[in-house]
């Protein structure tokens, strides 16, 4: 990461080797075509090279940072193209067993994610898919599914909190707190 911050182009090759497939996969699932996924992947790593100086390891993982950039760029594009071809959506409850990979950290991350996702209710998984993979706002989800906006927000919030603190990891869901600042 220090090399990335210093603008080292070789660091991009290393970063891509480790995370390129994950970024491409997200782009392919959200945008629906190989061409769009390639363009998104290029944009993500170019953005990472430009913004490397802003990455704060104390705030979170490199994988999280990259996937957040990828998701934000994909949502921007989806919203611009609203009405275009539907993405190849994989509902989060249809995740098969991931193939073995050499990177132990990625195996642990994927396994943790799968177990956390298994704790969501079908309604929560459905809402999360609509928001995360389609880039729909809470209001759009409410209008499409014919359910109250407040219900959508509550389910999304509950799903996120379960993902953050899965029981399978020994945690329990926490409600957000905090007062005026």
């Amino acid at each position, binding site marked *: 990461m220090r090399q990335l911050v210093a603008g080292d182009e070789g660091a991009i090759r290393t970063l891509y080797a480790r995370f390129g497939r*994950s970024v491409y996969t997200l782009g392919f699932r959200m945008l629906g075509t190989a061409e769009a996924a*390639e363009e998104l992947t290029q944009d993500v790593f170019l953005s990472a090279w430009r913004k490397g100086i802003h990455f704060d390891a104390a705030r979170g993982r490199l994988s999280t940072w990259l996937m957040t950039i990828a998701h934000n760029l994909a949502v921007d594009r989806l919203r611009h193209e609203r009405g275009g071809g539907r993405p190849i959506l994989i509902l989060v409850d249809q995740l098969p067993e991931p193939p073995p990979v050499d990177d132990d950290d990625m195996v642990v991350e994927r396994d943790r*994610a799968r177990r956390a996702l298994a704790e969501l209710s079908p309604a929560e998984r459905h809402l*999360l898919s609509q928001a995360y993979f389609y880039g729909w706002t809470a209001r759009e989800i409410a209008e499409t599914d014919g359910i109250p906006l407040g219900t959508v927000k509550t389910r999304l919030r509950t799903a996120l909190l379960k993902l953050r603190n899965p029981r399978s990891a020994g945690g329990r869901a926490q409600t*957000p707190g*905090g*007062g005026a*600042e």
Partner: protein
Amino acid sequence: MNCAEARDLLPDRVVGALSLMDERRVDRHLARCTKCRGEQAALEEAIAAIGLALPPVDPPPNLGPRIAARVAAASAGKPASSVRVRTLAAATMAAVLVAVGALGWAVAERGQVDLVRREQVQNVRQLTRALEAVGARPYRADLLPARQEKKGFGSVAIYSATRVNDFILVGVVLPDDNAPPYTVKAMDPKGRVLSRGTLSKTNNGDWVFYESTQVNLSRAISVSVMDRSGRAVMVGSIRPAMGE
């Protein structure tokens, strides 16, 4: 917005389920609140796991080398030097914006000195010469109301160079000024956002946005201005500025 309100919206922000206006409100709070940023980081990690858990799809084998080549090209094209031109541009641009308003910029560039004061014209011409001296190519767009019944007008100026940052300057006049904040986006032919920001109101009453960026803005073909609901209020097509 206080912490309780921000944290109530954070899950939606993280998955991308907020409207543009609410996104901006939450981001403004996050910019000044370390506790909420910590909460955001934890939620982002949780949601990123969804993407990481997807069955992998292999990218084409030449994608990695293409990305490396693109980074190398970007690195060669935008050196860290030319600070003097960027400093001149920022200072001059700020003075021009305050005194003239962004529309005055467009007018001043065309040399219509009867509409702006002579020294402001000189400021603009000095900036234009400095940018053109480093090979910046100018692009323009006229902004028109997105809906027939609406009024207003605006202009976009882009300078794209290989050796210094690209600039974009957007100025609009909105007689029906009742739905701020207004955001602006410049997009390429595939809908990718190349520049984005919030318009600021000047002392003259018009709205302006200015950005200096390493992004190659010569690829931009359209600009949109949106109100707080995300509806387009002004739109325009970008073209090379020839002989203006």
